[in-house]
């Protein structure tokens, strides 16, 4: 089992450690709901060093990534970040990723659960391209500082002018005096930053943020809160909303697919998908009562099966259960009343527009 550079800190500070994609990670320190609220109201700090970090150099790095990713890599300028999918030839999603362009290289951040698969996929498709991929995951440390106070908490530790950074931009500079990659990105629906440093410097940066943030309510947050936060923000999670039998258009991720740009693996299949409306759609549900609809639960329209829940939780912000799932296209309109089978009972649910939560932008 892999451990991040922050493993011992988590264990010493009440982190409940669980196996996540082969990494020993904290699911929570005190309470998922309290950690969730800290991110919505102040700031939360997440160890995300389990995420896969791949670096691409060489003259063909751009062309290689452009052929592997559904988004248009050729249009990326240094300092920009894009969301993209990696698809197989039939348009099925192999992973969802962020691609970062730097002056002299590109980087991908991939899901921990898919890292080995994606490394193999890329290696198998590199061919004679003059590009080198290096897996930087194990030697580096990545953390996410998220919430309305994130900028104010990170700014004293770095020379980067954070308020001038656009959302989905990236800069190379230093944090706490050590070389760092800082991007204005996240997986919580809040403003925030993700910071990558050498593994040996991870603890210094982490503790600096924790020590300075206590007064404003900054808390360390585990994967439990990361999941409830991304679900409120309606961000898909690989293995739940996304898998190899789902294409990006059905998943509602057309913004990460550029069918008008150059060729990429899966493009021909996605052009076919585009011709006929998908027979199912990714939707959001709110539930009556307080019971949570769990992944895998069946969704019913009366007695007729209408779909499946892919993620469900209790939304601390809405103070009620929420879920995402796929339903047949004829039952996907907001306001549609449906039922969810859960442990032998029927839960009453209604389709609502996504996201469940959107921060107010100043």
């Amino acid at each position: 089992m892999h451990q991040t550079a922050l493993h011992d800190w988590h264990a010493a500070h009440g982190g409940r450690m669980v196996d996540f994609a082969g990494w020993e990670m904290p699911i929570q320190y005190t309470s998922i709901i309290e950690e969730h609220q800290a991110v919505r109201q102040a700031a939360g700090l997440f160890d995300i060093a389990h995420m896969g970090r791949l670096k691409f150099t060489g003259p063909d790095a751009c062309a290689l990534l452009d052929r592997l990713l559904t988004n248009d890599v050729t249009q990326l300028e240094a300092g920009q970040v894009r969301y993209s999918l990696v698809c197989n030839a039939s348009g099925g999603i192999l992973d969802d990723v962020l691609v970062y362009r730097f002056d002299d290289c590109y980087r991908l951040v991939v899901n921990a659960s898919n890292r080995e698969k994606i490394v193999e996929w890329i290696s198998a498709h590199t061919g004679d391209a003059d590009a080198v991929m290096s897996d930087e995951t194990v030697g580096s440390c990545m953390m996410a500082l998220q919430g309305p106070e994130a900028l104010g908490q990170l700014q004293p530790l770095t020379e980067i002018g954070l308020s001038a950074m656009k959302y989905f931009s990236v800069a190379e500079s230093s944090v706490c005096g050590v070389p760092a990659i800082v991007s204005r990105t996240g997986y919580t629906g809040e403003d925030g930053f993700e910071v990558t440093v050498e593994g040996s410097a991870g603890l210094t940066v982490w503790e600096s943020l924790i020590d300075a943030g206590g007064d404003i309510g900054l808390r360390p947050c585990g994967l439990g809160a990361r999941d409830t936060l991304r679900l409120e923000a309606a961000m898909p999670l690989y293995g739940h909303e996304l898998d190899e039998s789902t294409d990006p258009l059905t998943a509602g991720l057309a913004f990460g697919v550029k069918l008008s740009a150059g060729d990429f693996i899966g493009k021909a299949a996605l052009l076919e998908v585009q011709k006929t409306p998908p027979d199912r759609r990714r939707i959001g549900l709110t539930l009556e009562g307080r019971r949570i609809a769990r992944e895998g639960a069946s969704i019913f329209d009366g007695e007729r099966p209408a779909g499946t829940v892919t993620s469900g939780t209790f939304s601390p912000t809405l103070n009620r259960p929420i879920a995402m799932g796929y339903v047949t296209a004829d039952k996907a309109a907001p306001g549609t009343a449906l039922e969810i089978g859960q442990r032998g009972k029927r839960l009453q649910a209604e389709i609502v527009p996504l996201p469940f939560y959107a921060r107010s932008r100043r």
Partner: protein
Amino acid sequence: MDPSELKYARTHEWVRPDGDIATVGISDFAVKELTDLVYIDLPAVGTKVEQGETLGEVESVKAVSDLYAPVAGEVIEVNESLPDDLQLLSDDPFGQGWMVKLRLADGQSLDHLMDYAAYQKHCAEA
């Protein structure tokens, strides 16, 4: 309620016997393990349960867990205020967070339950 005077099941329910009536709840250890409770389902008064049978469910953000009857008997009272105020479970699991009162089935003994010291050891090994 003094937790050291209660009896415990391996599945983390506590029992407070009083004649042929047993008050049942779940331990502070169980509440802390579950955390972020959102829902509890308790049986109706009059329900008869065998020892080890499902008595209800408690749901947290993470998962659903069954509650098991630590003894056989008939439900004669349920804590009606609990479903609307799960904070009682976190604040006072051995007192105001009680769940049900059972009239013990004929011949039901409590010998299979652990005392507090044995239960603490059980939790430490969990």
